[in-house]
């Protein structure tokens, strides 16, 4: 995928993840192919249950097994397959090369450690820095995220939601990881605080020279800070391209549906939103053909029979659809 000249920083190939539950086998991620180039920001978009968080956890190999299981695929980080590493090799990578920011700033911090202690912990796990040097670095991180270093001695509950998320960012970036995974980092925050945090992530990404995998359901945030975007549905990747291309010419009917369903600040009030009928399919009972076909207004017979697979319909624009919108030869014109 994407630019074939450079080795991608993260290259997910044919990843499939399953969960064994009481109601059956949940196919959370199905044959996912995704890559992220160094220094870029990729927006990973989808609704609840699409499999985004599962993918992120798979990259860090943090999926609880049982009941989860990675049934196929490779996850190449800087050329090395994470799935084939030993656990101690992975522990070295986690935090040091790949770091993660979680959605809920309330529960992702340790309530009984001070903020600077938590940053220092991250630093000392992955480097030789100890004592004063580590503490100094922790204070540098706090400065970087806009928190006064004196506040380092306070506990998480003494901070507001936005501040806690900044602390989370400071911890994640403490070791200058090459890849930062942010899982819905601003969903739990107010709009104005969200704006602060998104800007912070963007500026730090450039400053620290980290690549970013941003998981979200919000197309607006992706437009703000990402270079490329991947749309996920029912465990499959359905569309991938760079921002301009995808936002300007969405090709997959689901992507188009997403854009239509979002009320826009600039749009006219009133009227009705164009709605995609139905719901995401039951992950224990996915359709035989294209997973979107039961809801797709343009579905043809072949769509129900066999999934299409990602096809490059335009330069660096991949769509998993036989009849993408706006493409001649596909029969669906906008």
């Amino acid at each position: 995928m994407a630019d074939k000249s450079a080795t991608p920083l993260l290259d997910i190939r044919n990843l499939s993840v399953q969960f064994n539950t009481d109601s059956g086998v949940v196919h959370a991620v199905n044959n996912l192919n995704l890559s992220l180039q160094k220094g870029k920001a990729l927006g990973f978009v989808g609704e609840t249950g699409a499999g985004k968080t599962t993918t992120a956890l798979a990259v860090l190999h943090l999926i609880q097994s049982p009941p989860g299981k990675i049934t196929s695929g490779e996850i190449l980080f800087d050329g090395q397959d994470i799935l084939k590493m030993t656990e101690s090799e992975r522990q070295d990578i986690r935090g040091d090369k790949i770091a993660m920011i979680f959605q809920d700033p309330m529960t992702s911090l340790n309530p009984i450690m001070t903020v600077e202690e938590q940053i220092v912990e991250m630093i000392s796990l992955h480097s030789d820095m100890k004592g004063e040097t580590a503490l100094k670095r922790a204070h540098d991180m706090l400065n970087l995220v806009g928190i006064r270093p004196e506040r380092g001695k306070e506990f998480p509950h003494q901070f507001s939601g936005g501040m806690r998320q900044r602390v989370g960012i400071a911890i994640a970036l403490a070791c200058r990881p090459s890849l930062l995974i942010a899982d819905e980092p601003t969903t739990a925050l107010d709009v104005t605080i969200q704006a602060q945090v998104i800007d912070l992530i963007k500026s730090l990404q450039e400053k620290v020279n980290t690549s970013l995998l941003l998981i979200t359901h919000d197309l607006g945030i992706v437009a703000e800070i990402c270079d490329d975007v991947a749309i996920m549905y029912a465990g499959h990747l359905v569309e991938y391209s760079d921002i301009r291309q995808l936002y300007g010419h969405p090709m997959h009917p689901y992507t188009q549906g997403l854009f239509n369903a979002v009320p826009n600040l600039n749009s006219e009030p009133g009227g009705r939103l164009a709605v995609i009928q139905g719901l995401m399919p039951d992950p224990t009972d996915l359709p035989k053909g294209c997973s979107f076909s039961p809801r797709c207004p343009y579905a043809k017979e072949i769509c129900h029979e066999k999934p299409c697979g990602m096809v490059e319909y335009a330069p660096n624009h991949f769509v998993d659809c036989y009849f993408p919108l706006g493409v001649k030869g596909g029969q669906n014109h906008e």
Partner: protein
Amino acid sequence: MNDRTQATDALLDIRGLKKYFKVSRGLLHAVDNVSLTIPRGRTLGLVGESGCGKSTLGRVVIGLIEATAGEVFFNGKDVLKFTSQERSEFRKHAQIVFQDPFSSLNPRMSVYQLIAEPLLINKVYSSNQQVSEKVKELMDTVGLAERLITSFPHELDGGRRQRIGVARALALNPEFIVLDEPVSALDVCIQAQVLNLLADLKEQRGYTYLFISHNLSVVRYVSDEVAVMYLGQVVERASNRILFEDPLHPYTQALLSAVPVVDLDNRRERIILEGDVPSPINPAPGCRFAPRCRYRQEICLNQDPVHREITPGHFVSCHFAGALRDSRAR
């Protein structure tokens, strides 16, 4: 539209409403001197971030929480002074839909029981047969398949659960519905379905809505009039179009600029507010927004601003209202 008189077309007239909570550190000003009116058949969008008091306001208006001071006139009668009998009657006119479609439904009750509850509690019908028919009719109205009538909330997705919440609110045939973040917990596609449902109902039956949300795009979509709240006070109120095209209060301007926009070519320059939302406990005198306002002056920190009508129908609480037009707004 002049809505400061007790016009007969104002279904809801809130005057000087206050709700304070006693906490260990002092007095929490959840709702502080709010005055709003909602004309019959219209939607007032109430917007603000967490802690601004919008949910508390909704609950006071519906009678779930007692007010500390002020009046809420519904059809000319003060809700806050109702006897329990009058309150019973009031419930048939005003209902509420909650935010979280999971925790707002009793997990031990089936869809039938959940929707039938208001009918049974208020003894609307005399026979079970009539109740059953009404429940089925309501399910049809909100788009719930009849076969789900024996299902339980945990078997259904968020969108369906929220429809149950709406059906339940409609059971008593109210005229006025408070919608407290009704789609915030829902995915984008389901959100669109529920918003369409609410719009259809309003059009067909002439409901009046108080639509509470922190999501400005949604509020832009559904409201006729919009009020912005900050720390318990209404800082700006105007018709939908005017508020979004010509916001006068610095907070509203910042709020609007903070919303991530999907349109790549129409980027707004971001106004970044410094600091965090201050505490609503024992607020200091002066404009509550002043500490974070980039235009603040001496007077802002000392004197409370007055909620004034700048242009017809456009109210702002700011000492410099009218002078601070956002030059970057469209």
